[in-house]
């Protein structure tokens, strides 16, 4: 059977599965729509959180980035997992005990202020839209390569599926669909990794193959890669080029940003007890770990394979006429380009003047099974896995957007008297509109989608994280301090990113290390934004009115588990 038919069958079967689950798990109340009725088991919640968390970026882009960045790619590995420790230890249990639906709920009630609530709503919506546009784009890319339809059609099909289960099922539908999507995506990620690990090192476990010798030689894979890198004029694979300061700042910004992302935090409101909130962060990280420890192995295998196939076994370059099929396939999409600079009719890939190849980092995971000449069903599976990763994250984000509008903005702010039924109707309407906007952004991506990902994490790190931490651990933090801190952190972070990246305006300075503050790139500036938030919040709270006694009592009461009821509106 040819690849395209197989891909249609496998992707189609997964879509039927998701829709079947959606019909089974319809939401009947806002309680079910927002937090799945609060009755999800910690194991299922952990799995759903993992699928929610691992986006098109984790599935498609990350191993490719690591493959090209080597050691520098560690910022994503540590950054996007370490945040779960912060979540489990410092946030999730307390927010669960607090027992509301959303992050703006917590900020608004803890800081007894509609201003604080509004700032939080704006942040939540901004962060989520930035993120979701990238997911829809990911679906489009996969469709266009494997099903050979245009990106537009791909995005529309993806929108239709998400529309169906997000609008119908709310958090309940999304949670159970995400459990299925996790299974699809992790299977799709591991199968090619195991095959390739076996082929290169003879060890079936990619995490071990990563540290093994290349089959038939005494050379360790990583030593071989370091050797190839030196020979071809790249930085050492195990060393990288970023400064230590920058690696530190980016890792911290991603960790803290993870712990402050509203679509991740809201997952911990869906479990019945505080105890379950703690352990579901643990389950989530186990499920995430499986992919995140495999990714760097894939990165190293892919780099080795790619250099070998492009430059040939004798490292003189491969004749264009003898180019492997995967190079031809991906050249059609424009994601691989070859320019025969020295006119010898051969392709050559290196990090210096001899280089003739332009290779898009995003294709490594998708092309990997083709590079390793794996059977067609594995390639089709990878396509289904990439779509599962993109859809599960998109659905979680759309829910945050619709909840922010129907619950935080309408119910808690503009029209407090609406009935539960009306609110549910507004939530569904908002989800539908959000999907349209996301789809539009996926088809017409603003030129800066890649840049704004850093934005989303930086913003979450500089706004939500300090406000929530202080809200739990520092009883004396008042509304004036929290609002001033969030605004200062946000303005600083947005300002710094815009200054170098020039979103909406032309950049005001070249985005190079020499110009950066303390050598910290815009990707890592959220760490400094967070510190600015903490400092401003402390300073302002010292000179303004004290926190009312009843709010201090609330803080006391979230610090121990006993008496945690279901998440509720009042």
């Amino acid at each position: 059977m040819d690849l395209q038919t197989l891909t249609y069958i496998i992707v189609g079967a997964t879509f039927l599965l998701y829709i079947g689950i959606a019909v089974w798990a319809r939401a009947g109340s806002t309680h079910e729509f927002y937090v799945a009725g609060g009755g999800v088991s910690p194991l299922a919640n952990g799995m759903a959180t993992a699928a929610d968390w691992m986006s098109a970026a984790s599935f498609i882009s990350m191993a490719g980035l690591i493959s090209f960045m080597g050691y520098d790619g560690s910022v994503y590995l540590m950054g996007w997992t370490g945040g779960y420790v912060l979540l489990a230890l410092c946030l999730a249990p307390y927010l669960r005990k607090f027992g509301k639906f959303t992050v703006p709920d917590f900020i608004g009630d803890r800081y007894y202020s509609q201003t604080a609530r509004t700032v939080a709503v704006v942040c939540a919506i901004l962060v989520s839209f930035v993120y979701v546009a990238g997911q829809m784009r990911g679906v489009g890319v996969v469709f266009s390569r494997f099903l050979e339809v245009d990106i537009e059609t791909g995005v529309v099909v993806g929108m239709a599926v998400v529309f169906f289960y997000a609008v119908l099922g709310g958090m309940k539908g999304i949670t159970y669909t995400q459990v299925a999507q996790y299974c699809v995506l992790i299977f799709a990620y591991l199968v090619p990794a195991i095959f390739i690990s076996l082929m290169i090192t003879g060890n079936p476990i990619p995490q071990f193959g990563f540290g093994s010798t290349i089959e038939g030689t005494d050379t360790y894979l990583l030593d071989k890669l370091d050797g190839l890198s030196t020979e071809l004029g790249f930085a050492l694979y195990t060393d990288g080029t970023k400064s230590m300061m920058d690696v530190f700042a980016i890792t911290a910004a991603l960790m803290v940003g993870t712990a402050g992302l509203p679509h991740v935090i809201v997952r911990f409101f869906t479990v019945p007890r505080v105890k379950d909130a703690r352990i579901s962060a643990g389950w989530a990280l186990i499920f995430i770990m499986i992919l995140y420890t495999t990714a760097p192995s894939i990165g190293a295998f892919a780099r080795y394979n790619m250099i070998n196939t492009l430059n040939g076994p004798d490292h003189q370059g491969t004749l264009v006429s003898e180019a492997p099929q995967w190079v031809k396939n991906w050249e059609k999409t424009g994601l691989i380009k070859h320019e025969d600079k020295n006119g010898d009719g051969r392709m050559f890939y290196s990090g210096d003047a001899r280089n003739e190849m332009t290779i898009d980092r995003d294709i490594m995971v998708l092309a990997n099974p083709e590079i390793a000449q794996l059977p067609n069903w594995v390639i089709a599976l990878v396509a289904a896995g990439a779509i599962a990763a993109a859809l599960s994250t998109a659905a979680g984000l759309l829910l945050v957007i619709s909840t922010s509008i129907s619950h935080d903005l309408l119910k808690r702010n503009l029209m407090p008297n609406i009935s539960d039924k009306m609110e549910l109707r507004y939530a569904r309407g908002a989800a539908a509109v959000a999907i349209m906007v996301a789809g539009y952004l996926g088809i017409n991506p603003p030129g800066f989608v890649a840049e704004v990902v850093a934005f989303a994490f930086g913003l979450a790190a500089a706004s939500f994280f300090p406000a929530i931490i202080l809200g739990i651990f520092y009883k004396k933090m008042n509304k004036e301090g929290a609002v001033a801190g969030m605004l200062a952190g946000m303005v600083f972070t947005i300002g710094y990113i815009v200054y170098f990246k020039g979103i909406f305006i032309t950049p005001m300075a070249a985005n190079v290390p020499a110009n950066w503050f303390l050598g910290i790139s815009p990707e890592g500036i959220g760490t400094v934004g967070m510190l600015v938030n903490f400092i401003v919040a402390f300073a302002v709270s010292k000179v303004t009115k004290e926190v009312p006694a009843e709010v201090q009592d609330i803080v006391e009461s979230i610090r121990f588990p006993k008496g945690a009821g279901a998440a509720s509106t009042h």
Partner: protein
Amino acid sequence: MAFQSSEQASAYWRENVSLMLKLLAIWFAVSFGAGILFVDVLNAVQFFGFKLGFWFAQQGSIYVFVLLIFVYVVKMNQLDQKYNVHEE
């Protein structure tokens, strides 16, 4: 108030925060410490086919993160029992 006295409440909170800080110290040590600040020193050590610092940055830190969360869960459940603030 679920606690018998406010002394009990602050004792529970003190133990909770001290456990959290200890675990966060390990969290910091394996990622920012071994994986970033001291990566060059540790890279002098060979660990199977890895340089040790590189292994911490791309593998080891993640395994330790998972362990930390499970240790926290077990210890906190014990603490909740001890102060009788656990859930039904």
